[in-house]
C-alpha cells in the first residue's frame, strides 16, 4: 500500500526523544526530510549533539514505528550537514518543553564571544527571571542546570545551540 508522505510525517510525530520524552523527533527538528524515491521512503535524520547516545534508539524507534504501520520499503539516513540548531525546534515543541518543566532555548548572543554577560533564563514553573546557573552541563548534553531564586525549584534549561 502506498502511503502519502504526510502520513509518514504524522507517524513520526508519534516517535519521541528517549531523553526528553515529551518531544517528538519532529518537534525537535531532527527529521530533516521525508522523500519517496522509486517507491522507497527515505527519512533523513540529524543528531542534535555529535556524540548524542540517543541516536541509535531514535533510529530503531522510527524503524519500528514505520514497520508497525506496514511500511517496509524505507531507508533511514543520518546526515550531519547542515548541523542541527535549536532554531529547528518547533514552537509546539518549545511549549511542550516548558510545560514539562524544562526552559526552552532562549535567544543567546554568539557563543564564540568569551566573557559575554550571562543570559536570563526564566523559571519554567513560576516564570521568574531571578534564576542562577548551577552548572553549564546538565542531565544530558543538550541541557544546563539552573535554579530559581524565587520559588527555589531546580530546573533544566535546554541550551540554545547555534
Amino acid at each position, binding site marked *: 500500500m502506498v502511503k502519502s508522505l504526510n502520513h509518514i510525517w504524522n507517524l513520526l510525530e508519534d516517535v519521541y526523544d528517549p531523553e526528553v520524552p515529551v518531544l517528538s523527533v519532529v518537534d525537535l527538528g531532527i527529521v530533516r526530510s521525508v522523500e519517496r524515491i522509486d517507491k522507497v521512503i527515505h527519512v533523513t535524520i540529524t543528531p542534535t549533539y*555529535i556524540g548524542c547516545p540517543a541516536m541509535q534508539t531514535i533510529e530503531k524507534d522510527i524503524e519500528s514505528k514505520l514497520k508497525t504501520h506496514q511500511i517496509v520499503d524505507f531507508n533511514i539516513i543520518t546526515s550531519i550537514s547542515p548541523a542541527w540548531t535549536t532554531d529547528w525546534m518547533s514552537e509546539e515543541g518549545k511549549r511542550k518543553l516548558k510545560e514539562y518543566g524544562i526552559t526552552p532555548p532562549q535567544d543567546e548572543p554568539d557563543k564564540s564571544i*568569551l566573557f559575554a554577560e550571562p543570559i536570563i533564563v526564566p523559571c519554567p514553573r513560576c516564570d521568574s527571571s531571578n534564576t542562577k546557573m548551577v552548572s*553549564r552541563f546538565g542531565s544530558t548534553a543538550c541541557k544546563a542546570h539552573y535554579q530559581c531564586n524565587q520559588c527555589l525549584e531546580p530546573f533544566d534549561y535546554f541550551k540554545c545551540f547555534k
Partner: protein
Amino acid sequence: MTKKEALYNFVLRLGDDSLVLGQRLSELCGHGPILEEDIALTNISLDLIGQATLLLEYAGTLIPENKSNDELAFLRLEKEYVNVLLVEQPNGHFGDTIMRQFLFDAFRKPLFEALQFSTDEKLASIAEKALKETKYHLKHSSEWVIRLGDGTEESRTKIQVSLNTLYRYAHELFFTDESDEFLRQEGIISELSVIKEQWDKTTKEVFNRATISLPENNWKFEGGRVGRHSEHMGFLLADLQYMQRTYPNMEW
C-alpha cells in the same frame, strides 16, 4: 604523496586527539571533584568521542584497506596513534584537567572555524558540527581557568603549576609536516600560523584575567604526531583496548 594519503594523515591526527582526550575525560566518570563537574567533564568526553567516531570513520575510508572506525580506535599499536602528547597527559588534579582542556579548546575552536570552509566537503561538515560544541567547551574551560587563577592563593599556585607543566606540550598542537603543506596547497586546510595567532590571543587574554603568567622555561615536548608517545600512553591504551583485545569483534 596523494591527496588521499595526506588527508588520511590529517584526519587521523584530528580523530586521535579527540579519541584520546575523550578517553582521558571518561576516566573521571564518577570521580569528578564535584557532581556538576563530573557531569560536565563526561559530557565533554561524549562530544569528543562523537567527533572521534566521525573523524575515524572518515579516515578509514581514505586508505586502501578501508578500515572501520572501531578498528582504527581499538586495534592499532601505540606507535600508530598520532595524537599530540598534551591529550594523553594524566588528569592530575582538577586544575591540571581544566588547563589541559583549555589549551586544547583554544586550539580546536579556531581550527574548526577554518575547517568548516574546507574544500573537502566531508571534513567541512564534521568541522561545522563539532565547532558548535567546541565553543561551549572553551567557554567552560576558560571560565574555570580564570576562577582558579583569580581565586585563592592555593588555587592560583596550583593552576600556575598546571600551566607551567602543560604549556610545554601545547606547542605540538601546531606541528606540521609535508601532509599539511600538501593539503594547504590544495586549499583543503588553511595556514596553521593563523590558528596559532588566534590561540595566542585567547590564551593571553584568559591568563591575564586569571592573573597567571606564561612559564619562563619554554622547553617544548613533542613526538605524539609521529607516534612517539609519553609513558602514560600505554596505560591509557590498555584501558581503551581491553575489551576488543580480550573479546575480539565484540559488539554491544
